[in-house]
């Protein structure tokens, strides 16, 4: 049963992403509204994919990626970064830090679903 953690400080954004990926069978979706909350959940729970927005109040997406990659058990966790147009410079930095893929807003539901499916499949989480 694949588990995804969706992290964005905007509730609307989290719901939208959730709506896009809900069709995936037996998917369980958890939400976090800040980088710190995301790190807490990742360290205490078990997830197959992290969907992460770069732009957050307490610690930014880049720091989250760096922290995650620094943890042994999370080293190979697929990370999908959600960016906004104009974030090109940060995109490079975050990919260098170890994010797996990125998706720029605005994206269509199909695109998001496709990316998530691919990443979960690649991690062998879709069984």
């Amino acid at each position, binding site marked *: 049963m694949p588990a995804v953690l969706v992290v964005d*400080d*905007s*509730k*609307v*954004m989290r*719901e*939208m992403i959730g*709506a*896009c990926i*809900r*069709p*995936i*069978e037996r998917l369980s979706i958890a939400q976090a509204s*800040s980088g*710190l*909350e995301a*790190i*807490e959940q990742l*360290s*205490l729970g078990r997830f197959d994919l992290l969907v992460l*927005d*770069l*732009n*957050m*109040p*307490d*610690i*930014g*997406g*880049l*720091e989250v990626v760096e*922290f995650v990659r*620094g*943890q*042994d*058990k999370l080293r190979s966790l697929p990370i999908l970064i*959600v960016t*906004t*147009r*104009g*974030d090109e*410079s*940060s*995109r*490079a*930095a*975050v990919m260098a830090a170890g994010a797996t893929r990125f998706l720029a*807003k*605005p*994206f269509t*539901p*199909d695109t998001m*679903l*496709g990316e998530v*499916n691919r990443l979960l*499949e690649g991690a062998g989480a*879709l*069984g």
Partner: protein
Amino acid sequence: MGERVSERIDLRGFLTAYLAEADEHLAAANDRALSIDASLKGGAANPRAVRDLFRIVHTIKGLSAMVAVEPIVVVAHRLESILRAADRGASPLTPPAVEVIFEALRAIEQRLRALEKGAEVPAAAQSLIARLDEHARPTPLPSAPAEATLDLPPAVLSKLAAFECEQLVHGAADGRRAVSAEFVPSPRKAAEGLTINSVRERVGSLAEIVKVIPVAIAPSEAAPGGLSFLFLLLTSADDVEIAAAAGCDPGAVRPLVAPPGAVAPVAGGGEERRGDGGEERPPSDGDALDPEVPEAHARSVLRVDVGRVDEAMDRLSALIVTRSRLARAVSALDASSAVVRELSIIVQENARQLRDLRAALLRIRMVPFAEVLSRLPLILHHVRRTSGKEVRLETYAAEAELDKAVAERVFPALVHLVRNAIDHGMGTPEERAREGKPPEGTVRILCSARSNRHLAIQVNDDGRGIDRQVLARAIGGEVPANDAALLEVLCRPGLSTRAQATLTSGRGMGMDIVRKIVVDQLGGDLSVHSSPGEGTTFTLHIPLTVSILDAFTVQCGEQRFAIPVSIVEEIVEIDPRAVVRGPGRGGAEGTALIERRGETIPLVDLARVLDGAAAPRREALQALVVRRGAEPVAFGLERVLAQQETVVRPLVDPLVQVPGIAGSTDLGDGRPTLVLDLVVMVAALGRTLRGERAA
């Protein structure tokens, strides 16, 4: 598992949620912009507010892109560039830049409002875009790292921005202590309610949280996640309190700033070039940072759709009607029986419980008056700029609360009064100096609960006061003898513009609107007190028991009525030829029937329902279809006139408490118009019809 194409998910279905969130972001953005503006006036920068504002605008941009509101994305994108450059220290914001920022935020707000109304969202004005571009600068390269004197490991220090270091150091200088505390999350702690969110809240109420840094530690029984959160704080609380809030050992709370002379300064690495993080700012000025506005502590607050509260109120009204019927039925029983006495007691208690429930529901709609007032600083900012006067706003809301709908109505009245106070009541700084007053004028808004049914709001200014002689001369009338007469003159609609120009201290147009809102619509009271040279005070008394309904106004015979939109299923046109009459009885006319979507619906003349069978039957051209349970009924009337928001005041006197009459409203003609609850009437009708059949 193959890939499944998501069924046409339309992200525009999130529009309502988007609007609500965007509004919140916009309010926060304006708030930060005001902070930046205030700081600039004091000659300081406000890096935290700049960073916050940058992030908020970035969020608005991303969200707006997802729901495809391109004009907002365009404005937000440019706004973001200006803020990114400011955040990275390349081009600090100047007052003209801040003004453009306000303008851009206003442009975004206008487009949100258009979206809300379902109107077309206008493209961003070229002039605004041009002005925004003027202030944009290219983003800079990293500059030299700053030094810090914080007792922290280099790995942690490297994650702090310069302004955060400065904040910790200066905070320690002004009497508070800079300390670090650790929170180690675990499933056990989470079960006890200690999560990063709850700990942030608890610690936040004791201290100012400058930064929270996640630190990897070796996994252990106490730290199964291999994670610990390091809180960097400024506080006056003691270590034991902080430790308790963070769920750690008091020994784990450590000072960050060494006592003077003890430890050699540790050079902190500057923050590396980060994508969305901050940039090192060359230590230019040694100015103290503006005192930070403490973060508003999150109350335990729920966002509720007002419609849901109204729905609950409707259900309650139905309960109340049922209770009346029960009471009547009980009173018809043999009053001497003990069983009946007990029933009566129970019915009375039920009535009391319903009253309590109604009060509780009404409380849900209450918003703190302070929230209403928090929108004023932004308006004041603009009025100050255009009038060239220096004004300070002081507000005292205490714990006062009022119904959200009433608050929405009162706010424009307050804005009117504040604007007038500044435009007309206040002199320029030079004039004030001549009068021996401080150059900065003060407008004070004071709110107190006058009784548990009324709120008293005073708007006071320390300006020139109203000169009655001048006012009388300007309007060519008598000098008002007392405050009540003065108010009458001020509220005269359309004080002429010539009079406005010659009035040295009077109020301009708009007072008649204030009175209309406060007195006619809300049923409150308005009074004024003014002395030349001493300023003016307006006092508003607002009753707390009104509600606002979306209603259809209809013409029925000689009278107009208002009918809540929420109970009307449909408005149908009546073709007299398509009306069928059922069989009559005993010489009386049968029930009229119409057909609608395959359903046969009784058509009753609203005039007759209200005035009895003796009323002359008029030709019904339109009908409102109302459904109660499974029974639809069409109420025929001449014409539906309009749909509008109405303030409904309950009819409280027992003489006029009639089932089916929800209250009265003022449609602007000064005469009360009844608000009808046709659903209740359907119930009453049903009984009548069944009664007739049985006869």
